[in-house]
Each structure stands twice: as structure tokens, then as C-alpha cells.
């Protein structure tokens, strides 16, 4: 089959999206749902079908020219290579499961056509990012993803703060896109092309200083999309959207787009050590920040949101440490168990009568169907990094990479990584205990969970638990298949002496145990005070929102006011009005001169006559004197 069929992978969801949006409402609900799920399912099948196209250099498919003017020539081109294939499979696979789940979750919502349309459009945009051959098509997907998350977060638009959350998400990601845009423009002016492979090939020719700045720009762009430190405020509020949205966008796919961008541009950014340290530093700080915030969150989905932010921080650390395979490994496993956790959270919310606050839930273990507890536990175990689970191996690989990195400062990042791992374990089990253990606190009457919501959870649980097989370290007899699969793009091959690895694995196990015990002691045994100043501080995400509001929104509003009222109203219009009033005033002056009395006019004649007479005499005298 020719490679242009590759375009079917992203275009199928697009087609379904368009169909849903235009005719969704008019057609029966079942039709809309089936087209949505079928679209994504077939693209998953196609990815598997085309799997061997991605071996080695991968295949490049071109649809047609998009923009061509002067030296710029950008085409709609896809590159299906070793890095893109697993990512595409993950995106389409998880998306299919989430679509199925969404059919159940959104059962009673009337506006299903718009929902499924936007969801499919999102999958299309995400696939364009993953499969993009040149940066402009990637940018197209990049903004498309931002738009869909805006639409989906603000899906229940009747509540204004949902819309506000959507706008906030779109704005913050767009700020990130600015840096990505500038990097894009700079790269084009440096290398004369936008295709990723050529840029990476010419990366060596760019001067080091410029590479550092470019890396920072790309980092900031990635931070915008992956909710890392400077631009992270939008992720927590993004939970206003329906749970399948949170599961798909804010767990599995969109937040990892930033990591994917860095992996794609790895040959370029790996040239600057400063850039790599910056990436690791941002990753570490965000991981720590998010983990601390997750400790104090009251809503189940916000806990998971902050945990996602923290895990993506780990992926940034992995890229910073040089292992693209480590980052991708964690990205894939994280996608599985985090999507699982979000969906399970959706079921929990349903069970607790649409109650989000975990302090108002409890004792669900008894009332919920048994497998929900096991499924949730499976996800939690992966997240916490309990040994032998997928999460454990991927996180451990990253910590190993950090530890074995040449630069001593990475030992500091390793330490931050360990602390964050501890906190992660603590808040995960805190979540489990508060939701499932203890006596029921909430008063909401439980909804029954439809079949579609329960069924997709199982495959994800399995994938999460068995995720380790993807890139099992040599120590444990694994073949590090992902690392070899990525080949050239895999980055640094992390090797360490056996006892060092055993030491680190031991440390990881201890961390998880300590975390579990602390959570058990804190929420099962000790009934201490709940609310202190620090918890409120952490609850507000270190009051980041207020900081942003103070530092950026208020001055922006002031400048906008100044520009409109200050400049336009008073300065420009002011000068015009002054000119106009001056004209009227001088007109008035002349008006007063015409008194209407005959004598003043005659006097004017006389003065005029006198003047003429005087002038005549002057000339006469002049000429008289002349000869």
C-alpha cells in the first residue's frame, strides 16, 4: 500500500469530526457515537497495519503544498518513523478506549454531537503533532490541540467559570506557542527549511549561543502545552471539563505533546548542555511543585491533574538527562495508568452522586462494584511506583539516568526526583484511602455505572501493570526493546554497574513503602486536624493564580485601559477636539466683530480708505524722492 494512505490515520478522525459537527444533531445519537468511536478505532488499526513502515528512517508521505512563497516551501507532509509509531499507537489506542468510555459517561448529555466532534477533532490535531514532518504542520496540530482543549474544557458552557477555565487554558498555551513560534521563525531563517529532519541534520552548523536560546524557546513552548512550571496554572482549572476529556487530553495526550516536541528536536537541543540542564531543572521543579500541591487537593480530579503535572515533570527530567527512550517509556506507561485513573475517577464520581470532593466520599470499597476498586488500585499502584509495575520501571529508569549523568548538578535533580517519588506515593495512597476506605461521608445517592464505562478500564489496567515489559532494564533480564526500537533517536544509553542499579531499585522500594505507611497512618489511624494554613497554600497551587493575576493580568488591563482611554480618547481624539474648538473659538472672535451697527462698518470703510491713502502717499513720496 502506498504511503499516502498514511494520511488516513489523522484524516479519518477529522472526517468523523466534520460529519459529527455538521450532521450530528440531525442523526440519531447512536450514529454519532458509532462514527466517533469507529473513526478512532480504524486509525488505530491502520497504525498497526502500517507498523512496519516506521522501521529505520520511517516513511515520509506528502499530500500537497500548503504554503509556498519566495524561499519558503511548506507541504502537508507526514513522517511515520520509529519515534512517531509508538506515540501514534498510544494516542489512537487510548483515544479509542476513552471514546468508548465517553459514550457511557456522556449518556444523558444532549449536546453529544458537539462533544464527539470536538473529541475526534482533538485526536486529529494530536495525530498531526505526532506525525508532522515539518514544524509548521506540527504548529497546526499544536494550535488545533489548544483549540479542542478550549472547546472541551468549556464544554458545559452554561456555567461561566467552565468557559473561563477554557479561555485560561487556551491563553496560557498560546503564550507558550509564542515562544515556539519565535523558535520556528528563527530556525527557518537559520536553516532555510522547516522540515524537522533537515533542521536536526543542520543542527551542528548553528552557533552554540543560538542553540541555547533556541532550546530555551522550545522548552518554554513545550512548557505551555505540557503545563510545566512557568505556564502551569491552567491544568488544575482544566478539570472543569468532562472526565473523558480530562482523561484523554490532560492525562494521556496533550500534556505529553511538549515532551514529544523535545524528543523530536532532541538532536538540536542535545547540543547545548545549558539547555538540557534547564529542561531538567524545569522538570524537577515542576515535579516537586505539583507533588506538594497534590497533597492538599480536595477534588479527586485536581489531585490527578497535579499528579499528571508532576509525572510530566519526570519526563522533562528524562529528556534533560539525555534519555529519549526513558522519557518515551515513562510517557507511554504514564498515559496508560493515568487515563485509567481518570476514568476510574469518573466512575467514582458517578458512584458518589456527582460529588468531586474526596473528603465527602469514602467507604466506596463496599458500595462500588468490586472490580472498580481493583482497577483503581492497579492504576494507583503504577502511579506510586510499586515494584514490578510499569510506573516503577519507567520512573526508576529516569532516576537512574539522572543519577548516572556526568554533571554533578544532576545528583541534586536526582534527589528532587526521589523526594517527589515519595510524595507521589503518599498522595496516591491518600487518595485511595480517602475514597475507598473508611465510612461513607457523602450523602449523594449512587448512580449505576453503565457497561461502556467499566469495560475500557481493564485493558488499560493490564497495559499499566505490564508496561514495564516495553523497556525492561537489562538488570532484570529485559531486552530494553523500546531503546533499541528508537535506535538513533533514543539518546544516551543509560548503563550503570549492577550493584548501583540494585541499590537504586532498593531505594525505590523503600520510598514506596514509606509513602504507603505514612498515608496509612495519616488517614486510617490518626484523625488529626485537616485544615491548616499550609494546606490552604498548597490547595491554591502555591497561590500561582494570584501571582499571575497580580504580575500579568492587572498590568495588562491597566495598559489596555491606558491604550484605549489614555492614548486614543485623550491623546489623539483630544488633539482633534482641541483643533476643532480652536477653530470654533477663532470663528466666534470674528463673529463678534460684525456688530450689525452701521457706524462700525462705515468706520471700517474709513480705516480702509485711510490705509489706501497712506499707501498711495508712501509710493508717491517714494517716487517723488526717487527722481
Amino acid at each position, binding site marked *: 500500500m502506498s504511503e499516502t494512505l498514511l494520511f488516513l490515520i489523522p484524516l479519518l478522525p477529522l472526517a468523523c469530526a466534520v460529519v459529527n459537527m455538521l450532521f450530528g444533531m440531525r442523526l440519531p445519537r447512536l450514529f454519532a457515537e458509532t462514527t466517533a468511536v469507529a473513526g478512532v478505532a480504524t486509525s488505530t488499526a491502520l497504525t498497526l497495519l502500517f507498523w512496519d513502515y516506521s522501521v529505520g528512517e520511517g516513511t515520509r508521505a506528502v499530500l500537497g503544498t500548503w504554503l509556498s512563497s519566495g524561499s519558503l516551501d511548506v507541504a502537508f507532509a507526514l513522517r511515520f518513523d520509529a519515534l512517531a509509531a509508538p506515540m501514534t499507537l498510544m494516542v489512537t489506542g487510548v483515544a479509542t478506549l476513552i471514546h468508548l468510555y465517553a459514550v457511557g459517561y456522556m449518556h444523558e448529555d444532549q449536546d453529544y454531537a458537539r462533544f464527539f466532534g470536538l473529541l475526534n477533532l482533538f485526536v486529529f490535531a494530536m495525530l498531526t503533532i505526532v506525525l508532522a514532518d515539518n514544524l509548521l504542520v506540527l504548529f497546526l496540530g499544536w494550535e488545533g490541540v489548544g483549540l479542542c482543549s478550549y472547546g472541551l474544557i468549556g464544554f458545559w458552557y452554561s456555567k461561566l467559570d467552565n468557559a473561563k477555565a477554557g479561555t485560561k487554558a487556551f491563553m496560557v498555551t498560546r503564550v507558550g506557542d509564542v515562544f515556539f513560534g519565535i523558535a520556528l521563525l528563527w530556525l527557518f531563517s537559520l536553516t532555510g527549511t522547516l522540515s524537522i529532519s533537515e533542521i536536526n541534520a543542520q543542527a551542528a552548523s548553528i552557533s552554540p549561543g543560538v542553540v541555547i536560546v533556541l532550546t530555551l524557546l522550545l522548552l518554554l513552548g513545550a512548557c505551555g502545552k505540557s503545563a510545566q512550571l512557568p505556564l502551569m496554572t491552567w491544568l488544575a482549572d482544566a478539570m472543569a471539563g468532562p472526565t473523558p476529556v480530562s482523561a484523554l487530553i490532560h492525562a494521556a495526550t496533550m500534556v505529553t505533546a511538549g515532551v514529544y516536541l523535545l524528543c523530536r528536536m532532541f538532536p538540536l537541543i542535545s547540543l547545548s548542555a545549558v539547555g538540557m540542564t534547564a529542561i531538567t531543572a524545569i522538570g524537577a521543579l515542576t515535579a516537586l511543585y505539583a507533588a506538594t500541591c497534590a497533597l492538599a487537593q480536595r477534588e479527586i480530579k485536581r489531585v490527578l491533574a497535579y499528579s499528571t503535572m508532576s509525572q510530566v515533570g519526570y519526563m522533562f527530567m528524562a529528556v534533560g538527562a539525555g534519555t529519549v527512550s526513558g522519557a518515551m517509556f515513562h510517557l507511554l506507561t504514564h498515559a496508560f495508568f493515568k487515563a485509567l485513573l481518570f476514568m476510574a475517577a469518573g466512575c467514582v464520581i458517578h458512584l458518589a452522586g456527582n460529588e468531586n470532593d474526596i473528603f465527602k466520599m469514602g467507604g466506596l470499597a463496599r458500595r462500588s462494584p468490586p472490580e472498580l476498586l481493583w482497577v483503581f488500585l492497579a492504576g494507583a499502584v503504577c502511579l506510586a511506583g510499586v515494584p514490578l509495575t510499569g510506573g516503577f520501571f519507567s520512573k526508576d529508569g529516569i532516576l537512574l539516568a539522572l543519577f548516572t549523568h556526568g554533571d554533578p548538578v544532576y545528583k541534586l535533580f536526582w534527589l528532587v526526583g526521589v523526594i517527589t517519588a515519595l510524595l507521589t506515593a503518599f498522595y496516591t495512597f491518600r487518595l485511595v484511602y480517602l475514597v475507598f476506605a473508611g465510612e461513607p461521608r457523602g450523602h449523594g445517592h449512587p448512580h449505576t455505572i453503565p457497561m461502556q464505562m467499566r469495560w475500557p478500564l481493564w485493558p488499560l489496567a493490564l497495559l499499566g501493570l505490564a508496561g514495564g515489559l516495553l523497556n525492561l532494564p537489562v538488570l532484570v533480564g529485559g531486552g530494553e526493546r523500546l531503546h533499541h526500537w528508537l535506535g538513533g533517536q533514543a539518546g544516551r544509553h543509560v548503563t550503570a554497574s549492577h550493584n548501583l542499579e540494585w541499590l537504586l531499585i532498593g531505594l525505590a522500594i523503600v520510598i514506596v513503602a514509606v509513602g504507603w505507611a505514612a498515608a496509612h497512618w495519616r488517614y486510617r489511624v490518626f484523625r488529626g486536624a485537616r485544615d491548616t494554613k499550609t494546606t490552604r497554600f498548597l490547595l491554591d497551587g502555591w497561590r500561582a493564580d494570584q501571582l499571575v493575576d497580580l504580575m500579568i493580568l492587572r498590568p495588562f488591563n491597566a495598559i489596555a485601559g491606558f491604550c484605549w482611554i489614555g492614548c486614543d480618547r485623550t491623546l489623539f481624539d483630544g488633539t482633534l477636539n482641541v483643533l476643532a474648538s480652536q477653530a470654533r473659538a477663532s470663528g466666534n472672535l*470674528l*463673529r*463678534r*466683530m*460684525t*456688530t*450689525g*451697527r*452701521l*457706524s462700525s462698518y*462705515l*468706520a471700517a470703510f*474709513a480705516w480702509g*480708505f485711510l490705509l489706501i491713502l497712506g499707501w498711495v502717499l508712501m509710493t508717491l513720496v517714494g517716487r517723488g524722492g526717487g527722481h
Partner: protein
Amino acid sequence: MIVPFEHVLAMASALFVLGLTCTLVRRQLIMILIGVEIMLNAAALALVGASAFWQQVDGQVFVVLLMAITASEVAVALAMVFYLRHRKGTIVADQFNRMHG
């Protein structure tokens, strides 16, 4: 020429100035018109002086035309004064200031 031309012109200009002051100073419309008449006659005097000085008859023809025009001017002016007197009840020039700006 019985008198040097400059003297005639001097006398004409004196007369003209008198007429001018009369027009400027007086309040009554009638007196203003009389002032105008004086000025016109000053012009006539100058014309006749010139005609005598240059031995030309044109000057005198002009005076006749001048008189004709003055006659028509006075006719209309006085009709207007008559009209204003009845319409406005007064012929003091300053009363008619409706045309002010």
C-alpha cells in the same frame, strides 16, 4: 485755467473729508445720506477741475452721469428711509443691528 489745479483738488478733498466725517459721525440716516451727497459733489468738483485743467469735455460729461446716478441712488435711499421709518419706527442707524453675527 483761473486757479491752479492743485487748489481745486485741495478744495475738493476738503469737501470730501467733510462729507466723510458727516457720514461717520452722524446717527441719523438722513444725515448719513447727506454726507454721501457731499462726498459725491466733491467728486464732481474734482471732475470739473480736471476737465478745465486738461481742456477736455469728458470731465463734465462724467459729472452729468454722476448726477444721474446720484439721483437714482438718493431716490432709492430715501424710499428705504421712508420704509424703515414706518417699519421700524426709527431711522437712527444703530437701531438696525439685527444683522449682527
